[in-house]
């Protein structure tokens, strides 16, 4: 086993796998359960994230493929069929096996790569064909994060220019909006410092999210700031930097064209007309360096506040690109030629993310703006074409418009048909020397375009609606995890056990105080001292008890720990046997001691398997007796005084007492005489007797020759009991009842055998009575007495233990101390010499050569150093 990190991973991975599997089963039943979809996706997603820390490529790949499938399911692109659930469960099983390998050897088993490849392929085939493509671009996945970037226009031009230049030489521009939490200062955050660590910050605007209060009302430690930044850094880097505040920040990729706006005062100088005339041929010829020089020269002559200066600055920036975009250059030259402010002069060069809204007019939703924008672009191109102009300018204008429209078509993702039609129209226009064909086509689009743009919007809405959802969730998850981390402590069980042992010792030492008090009184003759010690004992006793219950609570686990594996089991077994079974789990949060819970696992497994295999009929059989074809198995847990009760109830065929009797006879478990006398309930109880198994044939599932007696042994070992009740044709109930905790046993101490002390477990004791000697009736050897109209057999503990106590130690009032106990459903009176106090003890079972001694369940140390033997009445009586 490797590093602590790896150890934690193993624990976490197991939890995640369990969570994923149970959520999957919920999903299979109800495919639309969003919470379950998110649960399973989240678990697998987290698992993928954590395994990424280690070098298990096969593991990572498989989990990743699983995540893709789940993500498709979540997006509604893939239906969750039972077969798909099977595949996914197989994947989880495989991953679970690997986790075990990692736990054991620190590495994956041999051949993991092959398995991973094969399973990954199986998963991938389930994916819709185009799904991988949609996921391929990471940008697309993040595009929805910041849905409104309408503040770009407010950024000073100089900053936008510098960002734009960076983008021109290949940088990846991101808009970041970070609104820290109100109380972020209290958690030690310093939002501003984060931006200092951003590699290439081009703009940073710090604003209040609400109007500033008056100076007096200002709370300096309530953060009301909002940070908006423009950075040229890969999104991954930004996300890493903001990983702790990921819920409060949004990022969005910015396409450079969105930064461009041409504003400023108009100037009527003819210089610009000359420049435009000079520039156009340069653009056509692609002579960028000459154009750059011209731009530089003109910029020197232009007052910075003028509109043309702004356009020139942008033009210069566009020209810094190794291969400037002709459409952009033309558009900016157009701006200079027209001399009008244009807040959105450039068309996107690359397919833009749909959420970059029109810079000029922030529209209510980014998505809604697409239609007018699209129409506006086409309309403006159509207008340009419609302008009359000298024949010489036609070619360049047509070229520029053609390019713009092509880009537009590409960016809107319209089909190849449109773009072919468009180039045909442009070619025709070129040949004819007339724009008419191109104008016609544009008109046609503008008229009928409604449908197709609507389709585009719908598509974008879909994407935009689905994608952003992933972020808040991821954030939510993180927050959730942090919250959990602070509340839940994962502690090694050994530490809790050590505490448990210590408290046990404390209880024992505490028990010695009464002896001390007695000594103080009797030996040293100080009654006062004795009283004080007793008072102290009362306090310590209370504290120790509270402490004990607190530690017990730490060890308490909900029974859902065991129950959780059953939905999967029932599903698999039911599918294998082709039975329709609904498993209903109730009271999963009932808590009991960890050891008890753990000891429950195997017996329950056995009982549930039995119920499904033998109890539940096939659908056809059920139909024949007019029962619903869907059988139900209930798994119930509840607390009953200091016992936790688990019931497994099925509505199957029940246990047939006659069959049991016959079987028991055949196996020689009982003889005919006894069989005839057995009541139905007693017959049913026969299944609990060792060596009894009714299974007609040995199946894969149960009936391997070990019957319910295994369950009984297991449960009794944990200090519990098993009862079976059944009604033929209606179903069977198996009831396990177990102590809540077995760490501390409460016993009653009695004197027997001439002053020897014995402990008797309190749960056996019904009451203590003193029986007048005259009331003891003798039937031959046996003695009995009447307790409230019931005859109770009387047994002398001395005899039972083989002590010959002739001397009578009674208290002289001609009465005997009798402890009425219940053993296996029967009341028995145990005659003892004397009752002593009740006591909490830590029961230590005998080990070594003592372990074969019958009749005792163990020993405990008393406060005065004596050893108390605790009787096992079941064995004794």
């Amino acid at each position: 086993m490797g590093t602590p990190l790896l150890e934690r991973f193993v624990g976490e991975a197991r939890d995640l796998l369990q969570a994923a599997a149970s959520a999957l089963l919920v999903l299979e039943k109800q495919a639309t359960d969003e919470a379950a979809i998110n649960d399973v996706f989240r678990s697998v997603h987290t698992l993928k994230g954590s395994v990424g820390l280690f070098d298990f490529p096969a593991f990572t790949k498989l989990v990743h493929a699983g995540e893709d499938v789940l993500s498709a399911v979540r997006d509604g692109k893939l239906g969750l069929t039972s077969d798909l659930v099977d595949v996914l469960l197989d994947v989880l099983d495989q991953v679970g096996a690997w986790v075990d390998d990692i736990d054991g050897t620190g590495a994956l088993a041999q051949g993991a790569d092959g398995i991973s490849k094969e399973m990954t392929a199986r998963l991938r085939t389930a994916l819709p064909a185009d799904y991988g493509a949609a996921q391929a671009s990471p940008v697309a996945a993040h595009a929805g994060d910041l849905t409104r970037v309408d503040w770009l226009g407010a950024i000073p031009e100089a900053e936008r220019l510098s960002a734009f230049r960076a983008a021109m030489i290949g940088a990846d521009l991101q808009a970041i909006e970070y609104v820290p939490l109100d109380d972020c200062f209290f958690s030690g955050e310093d939002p501003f410092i984060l931006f200092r660590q951003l590699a290439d910050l081009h703009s940073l605007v710090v604003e209040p999210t609400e109007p500033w209060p008056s100076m007096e009302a200002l709370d300096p430690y309530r953060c009301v700031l909002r940070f908006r930044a423009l950075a040229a850094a890969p999104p991954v880097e930004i996300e890493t930097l903001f990983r702790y505040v990921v819920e409060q920040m949004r990022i969005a990729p910015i396409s450079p064209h969105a930064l461009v706006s041409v504003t400023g005062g108009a100037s009527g100088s003819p210089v610009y007309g000359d420049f435009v005339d000079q520039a156009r041929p340069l653009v056509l010829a692609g002579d960028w360096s000459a154009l750059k020089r011209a731009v530089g020269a003109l910029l020197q002559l232009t007052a910075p506040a003028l509109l043309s200066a702004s356009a020139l600055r942008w033009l210069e920036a566009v020209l810094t690109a190794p291969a400037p975009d002709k459409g952009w250059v033309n558009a900016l030259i157009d701006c200079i030629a027209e001399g009008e402010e244009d807040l959105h002069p450039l068309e996107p060069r690359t397919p833009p993310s749909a959420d970059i809204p029109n810079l000029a007019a922030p529209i209510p939703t980014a998505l809604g703006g697409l239609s007018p924008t699209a129409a506006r672009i086409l309309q403006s191109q159509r207008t340009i074409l419609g302008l009359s102009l000298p024949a010489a300018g036609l070619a360049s204008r047509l070229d520029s418009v053609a390019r713009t429209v092509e880009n537009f078509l590409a960016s809107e993702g319209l089909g190849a048909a449109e773009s072919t039609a468009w180039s045909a129209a442009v070619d025709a226009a070129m040949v004819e020397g007339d724009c008419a064909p191109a104008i016609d086509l544009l008109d046609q689009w503008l008229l009928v375009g409604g449908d197709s743009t609507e389709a585009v919007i719908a598509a974008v809405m879909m994407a935009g609606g689905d994608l952003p959802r992933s972020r808040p969730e991821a954030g939510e998850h993180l927050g959730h995890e942090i919250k959990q981390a602070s509340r839940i402590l994962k502690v090694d069980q050994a530490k809790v056990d050590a505490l448990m042992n210590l408290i046990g010792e404390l209880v024992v030492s505490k028990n010695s105080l009464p002896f001390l008090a007695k000594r103080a009184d009797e030996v040293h003759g100080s009654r006062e001292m004795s009283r004080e010690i007793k008072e102290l004992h009362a306090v310590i006793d209370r504290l120790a008890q509270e402490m004990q219950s607190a530690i017990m609570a730490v060890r308490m686990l909900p029974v859902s720990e065991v129950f959780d594996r059953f939905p999967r089991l029932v599903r698999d077994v039911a599918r294998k046997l082709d039975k329709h079974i609904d498993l209903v789990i109730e009271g999963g949060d009932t808590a009991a001691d960890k050891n008890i819970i753990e000891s429950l696992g195997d017996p329950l497994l056995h009982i549930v398997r039995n119920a499904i295999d033998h109890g539940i009929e096939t659908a056809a059989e059920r139909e024949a007796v007019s029962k619903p074809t869907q059988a139900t198995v209930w798994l119930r847990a509840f607390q009953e005084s200091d016992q936790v009760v688990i019931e497994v109830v099925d509505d199957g065929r029940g246990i047939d007492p006659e069959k049991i009797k016959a079987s028991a006879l055949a196996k020689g478990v009982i003889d005919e005489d006894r069989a005839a006398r057995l009541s139905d309930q007693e017959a049913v109880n026969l299944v609990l007797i060792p060596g009894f198994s009714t299974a007609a044939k040995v199946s894969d599932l149960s009936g391997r020759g070990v019957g319910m007696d295994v369950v009984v042994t297991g449960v009794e070992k944990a200090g519990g009991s098993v009862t079976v009740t059944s009604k033929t044709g209606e179903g069977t109930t198996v009831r396990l009842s177990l102590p809540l905790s077995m760490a501390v046993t409460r016993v009653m101490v009695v004197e027997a055998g001439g002053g020897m002390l014995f402990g008797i477990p309190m749960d056996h004791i019904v009451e203590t009575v003193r029986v007048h000697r005259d009331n003891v009736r003798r039937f031959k050897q046996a003695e009995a007495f009447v307790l409230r109209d019931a005859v109770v057999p009387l047994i002398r503990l001395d005899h039972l233990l083989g002590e010959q106590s002739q001397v009578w130690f009674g208290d002289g009032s001609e009465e005997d101390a009798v402890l009425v106990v219940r053993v296996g459903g029967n009341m028995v009176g145990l005659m003892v010499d004397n009752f002593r106090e009740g006591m909490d003890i830590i029961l230590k079972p005998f080990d070594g050569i003592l372990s074969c001694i019958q009749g005792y369940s163990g020993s405990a140390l008393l406060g005065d150093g004596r050893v108390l033997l605790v009787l096992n009445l079941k064995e004794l009586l």
Partner: protein
Amino acid sequence: MPFTFAKSTATADESCTVEDALSLLEFLLANPGAKVDLGPCATLHTAVLQVLLAVKPKIIALPREAFLRRWLSPALAPPVKRGSK
């Protein structure tokens, strides 16, 4: 005490931490019209920045440190805004 409070001027020290936000605010409240000298400041906690942004005292000197100077200058001495919002 990272801020040195004189009669009507608060001079920042090299590092202004989150605790200084309150003392700065109290000073500015007690001395309306007081000025702030950020010259020596090299690290400025967001909380202090927020006080400065909210109260808008006259800033005598911006931090000499490049990053702060670059990004605080528009915020603390806002230039005429260009472009439309």
